[in-house]
């Protein structure tokens, strides 16, 4: 007999989160209570996350082991061709392999991060909250080759609805930036920098408009860079991003479009460029703590095709 099983589908409603609708009465903006803007260097964060995944060529293996709640060690192996920057248009690749050992210490107030490679390069990062509003960040990269090491220290101050940052780097590099929220959705910022070694200085401005569904940013700098980006969150799992970069000094134009699918078992990012480059990056969760990574990049103009695979173990 045809029995109509009216099974209430309870699972479908629990996975959908409803965004509370703002009534017309709540639209009055309280200009004294604006949210704190995101840091100046992360202004393109959403676009960068979607459009610039860490593409690689070769094999990569990362193992992270937590010894403590705060301390963890990491081992990482990379084997594959490395590109040598060459003057001619041909890209020269030589096969290389290296092992990298690292240690992380993560505390709410202090974060230490260090990596050392078999070719003698040391990478270190420190992030320390000196007070509730002031924090110190430092990072340095030391190499065996002379004059190739560099380090940078920055002090960040977080105000009620603004942030400022002051940076000092080696080679007499000074930089400062400031970003302020103007409305709950819009924030403006500016930066200046001075490089003593190269005798260059520059000034730049940036603006960011974000709502729940989209983020639009624009940045102009006196080094000739104009960068605009737009990210739209189409649904909970999918977001589409587009980016436009123009250098008015060297007359270089690049536009790129990409998508970012965050599904339960995997994260897939794909992008296509106006330089004739198509790239895709897939991170698939095989098991708890085990991630499988695939990366592909096709450059049709230079006929350079790069494919990589890897495995990431650890939380």
């Amino acid at each position, binding site marked *: *007999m045809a*029995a109509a*099983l009216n*099974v*209430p*589908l*309870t*699972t*479908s409603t629990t996975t959908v989160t409803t965004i509370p609708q703002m009534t017309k009465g709540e639209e009055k903006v309280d200009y004294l209570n604006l949210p704190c803007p995101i840091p100046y260097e992360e202004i393109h964060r959403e676009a960068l996350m979607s459009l610039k995944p860490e593409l690689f060529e070769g094999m990569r293996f990362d193992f992270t082991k937590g010894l403590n709640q705060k301390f963890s060690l990491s081992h990482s192996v990379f084997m594959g061709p490395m590109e040598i920057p060459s003057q001619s248009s041909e890209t020269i690749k030589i096969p290389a392999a290296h092992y990298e050992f690292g240690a992380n210490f993560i505390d709410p107030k202090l974060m230490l991060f260090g990596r050392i490679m078999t070719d003698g390069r040391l990478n270190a990062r420190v992030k320390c909250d000196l007070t509730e509003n002031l924090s110190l960040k430092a990072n340095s990269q030391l190499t065996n080759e002379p004059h190739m090491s560099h380090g940078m220290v920055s002090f960040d101050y977080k105000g009620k609805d603004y942030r400022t940052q002051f940076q000092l780097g080696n080679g007499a590099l000074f930089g400062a930036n400031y970003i302020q929220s103007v409305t709950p959705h819009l924030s403006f910022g500016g930066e200046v920098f001075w490089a003593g070694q190269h005798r260059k200085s520059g000034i730049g401005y940036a603006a960011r408009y974000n709502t729940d569904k989209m983020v639009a940013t624009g940045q102009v700098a006196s080094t000739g860079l104009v960068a605009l980006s737009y990210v739209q969150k189409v649904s909970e799992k999918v977001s589409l991003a587009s980016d436009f970069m123009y250098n008015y000094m060297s007359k270089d134009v690049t536009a790129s479009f990409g*998508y970012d*699918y965050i*599904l*339960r*078992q*995997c994260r*897939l990012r*794909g992008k*296509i460029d106006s330089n004739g480059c*198509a*790239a*895709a990056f*897939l991170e698939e969760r095989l098991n708890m703590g085990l991630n499988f990574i*695939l990366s*592909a990049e*096709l450059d*049709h103009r230079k006929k350079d095709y790069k494919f990589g695979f890897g495995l990431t173990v650890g939380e």
Partner: protein
Amino acid sequence: MASQPRRGGVSLPERRAAKSDSNGSIISKLSGSPIVSRGRQAASDAVLVTRKLLKSTGKAAWIAGTTFLILVVPLIIEMDREQQMNELELQQASLLGTPPQPQK
């Protein structure tokens, strides 16, 4: 014959002047006539153009095909898996989540 200057990178082969053959059979006279020679010329031009068109279509198809393979195929595979998992979960939930209904 005067050689023509090459313009651009592509130029069709030089046209031979039509030779009119007065002494000889009807066939040779016919094959030497201007209509036939022009027809022959047009046929070889058509072959050349078709070859170039095929080559550029082939190149475009290769670029489109490999880009589709990299950008779209993983997406289809992952979305399919997600859908299968959703169906499985739905089935599991309907099996475990609700008390067994008496079948009429």
